[in-house]
């Protein structure tokens, strides 16, 4: 009797979570013949990795290069977020700031604003005659024309996802046992050694979740690339959107979606491994 209580929910998730994903898988693995009958095929996946001209190198093939560019831009953004975010989290977690929660709050407030508006704000700044170029012109520095380029997409990702990096690193730094740091100092370690041997290794779980929380939305985004990367700018997310909403090729779109899920699962596996690796103390 008690178990029956969960059954409506089991039906709910079957219809609204399991079946939709199975439908994506089904569409990715089928095609229709001339009579309109569906048959099993791997063609949709083959198309993703296909050469457009004979003998084209694998990495230069059109869809493969889209995937690589998505991974590459997400990696660059993640690296920049780490380089900018770690010191910020470290400073906030350290001594000298009494109102830590208020500082953290200040970093999180912009996250509550609509994601699209935050991205759109950069249009005004980066435009040819935008705020940034007016400022640069005023200072006598040559104009920057980065809107609708890779640089603008990376900037958009860094801006939108930076708090995702700061928050988990800050949390794990705050949890660090201060007596460990003091013990290292008592044993004669200097500031750099305390950081590299004690503080940083202990903050790795925070770094790993920060990296995950920046890389995942970065690699799947299509909004940032659509607004800041201009019309024909393509990441893997844009490719899926186009197949479903513009081209109407659900089968190819589904195949790309499955490839994206596999990509995410692989990167999660890699991140989880880094997290579990024992901290080497030589």
């Amino acid at each position: 009797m008690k178990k029956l209580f969960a059954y409506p929910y089991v039906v709910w998730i079957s219809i609204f979570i399991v079946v939709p994903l199975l439908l994506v898988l089904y569409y990715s693995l089928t095609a229709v013949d001339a009579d309109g009958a569906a048959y099993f095929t791997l063609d949709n996946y083959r198309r993703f990795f296909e050469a457009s001209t004979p003998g084209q190198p694998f990495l230069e093939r059109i869809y493969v290069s889209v995937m690589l560019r998505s991974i590459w831009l997400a990696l660059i953004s993640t690296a920049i977020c780490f380089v900018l975010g770690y010191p910020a989290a470290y400073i906030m977690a350290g001594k000298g700031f009494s109102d830590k929660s208020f500082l953290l709050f200040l970093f999180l407030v912009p996250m509550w604003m609509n994601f699209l508006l935050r991205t759109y704000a950069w249009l005004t700044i980066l435009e040819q005659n935008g705020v940034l170029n007016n400022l640069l012109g005023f200072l006598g520095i040559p104009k920057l024309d980065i809107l609708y380029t890779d640089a603008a997409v990376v900037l958009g990702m860094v801006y939108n996802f930076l708090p995702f990096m700061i928050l988990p690193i800050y949390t794990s730094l705050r949890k660090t046992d201060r007596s460990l740091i003091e013990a290292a100092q008592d044993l004669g370690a200097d500031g750099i050694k305390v950081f590299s041997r004690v503080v940083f290794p202990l903050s790795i779980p925070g770094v790993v979740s920060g990296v995950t929380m920046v890389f995942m939305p970065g690699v799947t985004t299509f909004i940032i690339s659509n607004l800041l990367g201009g019309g024909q700018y393509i990441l893997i997310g844009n490719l899926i959107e186009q197949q479903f909403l513009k081209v109407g090729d659900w089968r190819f779109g589904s195949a790309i979606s499955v490839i994206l899920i596999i990509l995410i699962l692989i990167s999660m596996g890699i991140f989880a491994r880094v997290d579990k690796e024992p901290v080497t103390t030589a």
Partner: protein
Amino acid sequence: MLKKIYLGLMLFFMYAPIIVLMIFSFNASKSRARWGGFTLDWYAELFQDPGIMKALSNTLLIAVFSALAATVIGTLAAIGIELLGSRLKSAVMSVTNLPVMNPDIVTGVSLMILFIFFIRLAGGGGLGFGTLLLSHIIFNVPYVILSVIPKLRRLDGNLYEAAQDLGAPPMKAFLKVVLPEIMPGVVTGMMLAFTLSVDDFVISFFTTGSGVSNLSILIFSMARRGVNPKINALSTLIFLVVLVLLYLINRRDTRNQKKQNAGESILEI
């Protein structure tokens, strides 16, 4: 000192775009390049734009109804899941976590396929307000469950049985004993659901149709046509609403904490 400068620069980076939007929402000249004097015209135009007002009401209606529905479904589901045996429980939880882990774009297209599949089966209707609302309920339910389950774990199961032993029918025992205990989790889940619904773009983009927009979709289509002062005015208003809401929530939390502290100190006496 260096530390303060660094944090200051980072905060400048976070807030500069928002401040720029706010300043230009009062700019009389439509061009962003020069300042044409102070005006409130964009705000007036914003409130007279039927498309924006319709999108705003859609956003709020969907956020309220999807949060309420997801809270009811999610709370009942959380209780059901907690009553399951451990193997089934972990299976159901893994499926529940799928939409949380999956990229939004995959959730979006998978729901779009499902809805169109059903629409073809039913032989009528189309994507629109109904599918938009349903998709928000679907992606909100897991977040409610994840907020309620920790509270259920801390609940003393004997309390419910004690209430029944004292003659309370199951429904009354639930409402008077279980629900008050898990209420903080239920409220957190509902607020989370509301926020996620207001903020969602990707899933909405794929599951709506026939001209039904929420604010995110409308902003997207306006932003693609370039910078528009009306969006600046809208951003300013949204940012102010967010600030006020965050302030109110924070104040409520600190007051609750003070109350708790006061209660504890009384107990200690």
